[in-house]
Structure formats: C-alpha cells, structure tokens
C-alpha cells in the first residue's frame, strides 16, 4: 500500500482538495467512535456521494472501500 494515503488527516485534506476542484461541498453530518460520516454535495444541493472516513481502526479494507466509494467522482487513484 505504498504511496496510498493512510491517516485520517491526509485523507480529509485530499477530500477537501478534490472536492474544491470538482465544485463540491464537503459535509460531515455525524461522527462515530471509528468514523466520520461524509456527504459530498453538488451546486444544486444534491448529495452525490455517501461514505465513511476512518478515524481509528484504519485498515486496508476500510481504505479500499473508501477509495471505491468516491472513485466515480475523483477517479480510480484519488488516494495515491
């Protein structure tokens, strides 16, 4: 998993960067013990992505799932 973002802070910053580039608003409606819940919202206030961002218990599988959840917006290797 060399080169793949793997901390919450890195992932959060990358999401903000890419959201700005794509004209999307980042919304964090809720937080659980292990996850920040994430909505990405377009200019028409439509939620275009739903996912959970790992805060603790950050495993390879959780990162792969997150990558896949936002791939349709940010492209295949957005976490690299």
């Amino acid at each position, binding site marked *: 998993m060399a080169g793949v973002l*793997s901390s919450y802070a890195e992932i959060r910053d990358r999401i903000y960067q890419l959201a700005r580039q794509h004209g999307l608003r980042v919304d964090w*409606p809720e937080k659980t013990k*292990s996850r920040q*819940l994430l909505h990405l919202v377009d200019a028409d206030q439509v939620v275009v992505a*739903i996912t*959970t961002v790992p805060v603790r218990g950050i495993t390879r*599988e959780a990162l792969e*799932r997150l990558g896949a*959840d936002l791939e349709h917006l940010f492209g295949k290797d957005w976490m690299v």
Partner: protein
Amino acid sequence: MTEHTLIFKVIRSRALDTGTDVWVALPEGAPGSVSGDTLAELLEEAEAVKHFVLGLSKDVPVRVEFVFEVPGVPVETIDSYRQARARLIDQLRQAGLSEQDSAELLTLPGGQALRRTA
C-alpha cells in the same frame, strides 16, 4: 413501514494507525465501513451508521445482520452454532430459567450436567 435489512461482512484486520488487530464491518450493497476493538464496539458502530449508509431517515426500521469471515472457520459453522444455541436458550426459558441464567448455564465449565427433573 417496511423494515430494511443491512448485512455487514465482518473480518479481522490489522489497523494501520494502532498496529493492532481490529474487527472491520463492510456493508453489502452500501458504502462505507466501521471498525471496533471488540465485537460489542463493532455492533454499536454498525447500528450508528446503518441509516446513513442506506440513505434512510432514522425513523425507518433497519435490521442489521452480520456474516463473520474468520480464517479456517466456515461461515455455516458459526451460523449453525448460533441457531442451535438460540433454540437451546429458548428451551431453557420454557423450562423456567431466566434469560440471564440460561446464558450463564451455557458458559459454565465442562462437567456441569443439567439433570432432568421432569
């Protein structure tokens, strides 16, 4: 109101932030994931996100189910044990035992036989 069911696939995996093994649950047909140091924590996390990952409001009933993938242990083995245990607890309850006593009896060390008195 229709009750929805959300199935989580559950695995053990090494956490990159702590270096310890944790439980991870991945919802089938829905985005996201949750994790927990213990199963109890994991179940709590799954309950906390179930409406969100399905895009449903919190007044919609959602039942959560788990499929455990433990290396070397077939899923069917875990499922059939849990079903047999649930049936046995039911029988113990019908025999007059409390829920707590029924569960406690099933965890007593070996050699403690249940004698039939009727």
